[in-house]
């Protein structure tokens, strides 16, 4: 039941991001793209290679996270409402996991690298749980991660260049030790539910 739900959610991510990408670029996939794997309905390919800078200023890649499960959330530190809520969920999951916490790396990936510099993201994740890894990077690196995770992040256009808002994907991804997607949690999933799902994988 849980898997069905997760796949449905994942499907919506794929559809949502595709539509958003089409709207943003105005490009309908051309014939030249048809040879590529693209998006397979029912078995979304989420995850994959990426490089970034962690909250300690170290260059990291997806390889550094393999061997442990990953709990991934996309957001930005300037977000006062949704992102702290999800980070609190992460913090509670890590506490509730007890000894099993060692098998998961909670990861907060910024979709606002311009403002979320290494010290800013470090301070933010530390406010919630010492085990949370914050990832930032160049625009290209962040674009690559968003693409790999079919995640959406778009700065809201407005006159405020300093305190702008960013729309972003609200899902939490649970990735396996091999870096492949296990399931997707919708926003508002309780820490208890996430903890249970993680424990089932151990």
């Amino acid at each position, binding site marked *: 039941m849980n898997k069905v739900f997760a796949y449905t959610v994942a499907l919506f991510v794929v559809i949502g991001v595709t539509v958003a990408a089409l709207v943003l670029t105005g490009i309908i996939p051309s014939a030249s793209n048809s040879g590529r794997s693209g998006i397979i309905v029912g078995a979304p390919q989420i995850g994959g290679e990426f490089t970034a800078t962690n909250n300690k200023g170290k260059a990291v890649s997806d390889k550094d996270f393999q061997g442990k499960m990953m709990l991934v959330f996309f957001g930005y530190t300037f977000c006062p*409402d*949704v992102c*702290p809520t999800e980070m609190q969920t992460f913090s509670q999951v890590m506490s509730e996991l007890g000894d099993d916490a060692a098998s998961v790396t909670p990861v907060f990936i910024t979709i606002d690298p311009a403002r979320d510099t290494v010290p800013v993201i470090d*301070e933010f994740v530390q*406010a919630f749980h010492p085990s949370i890894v914050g990832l930032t990077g160049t625009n290209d690196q962040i674009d690559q991660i968003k693409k790999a995770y079919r995640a959406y992040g778009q700065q809201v256009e407005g006159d405020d260049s300093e305190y702008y808002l960013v729309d*972003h*994907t609200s899902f939490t991804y649970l990735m396996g030790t091999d870096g492949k997607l296990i399931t997707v949690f*919708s926003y508002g999933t309780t820490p208890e539910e996430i903890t249970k799902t993680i424990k089932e994988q151990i």
Partner: protein
Amino acid sequence: MKILKIVSTIVVASFLTLSFSAVSAVAHADEKHDGIELKDAWARARTASAKVGGAYVTVHNMSKEDDRLIGAKSTVAHKTEIHTTKMTDGVMKMMPVTGGIEVKAGKMVMMKPGSYHIMFMGLKEPITKGKTFPVTLVFEKAGEIETTVTVKDAGAMGGMDHGKMKKTN
């Protein structure tokens, strides 16, 4: 000797003034005002370098007339606005509330995470846990009402704190 007397008078006078302002400030908090009552104003602690923050207030319209929350003011930030969070197709969008929030007569509107919040943009001072600061809400009919915001944990959920929901049995 005369100087000493003047100085002591000034000291006593300033002390009295200060204590009076303190008392009046406390009395002002959560005060009922033209039928609108502001309750449980709280915010999440933000990091020392944070430039934005949010706060939540419960608005109770105890009058017989509908009213509308049309704005907010604070001294902690350069800009204070009423925002809301909406989820569309899995994408979280935060935006300023346009046209205000209606608070019907006899009803309550509870701002909470994932919904309505007061947004502070360009923080002038850090919002640290345990701190309190004033915020003023502006209503169409009731006018301006001030309340005191209490800063909780960085991930506090208000009255629904998961941490406080631990079963005792």
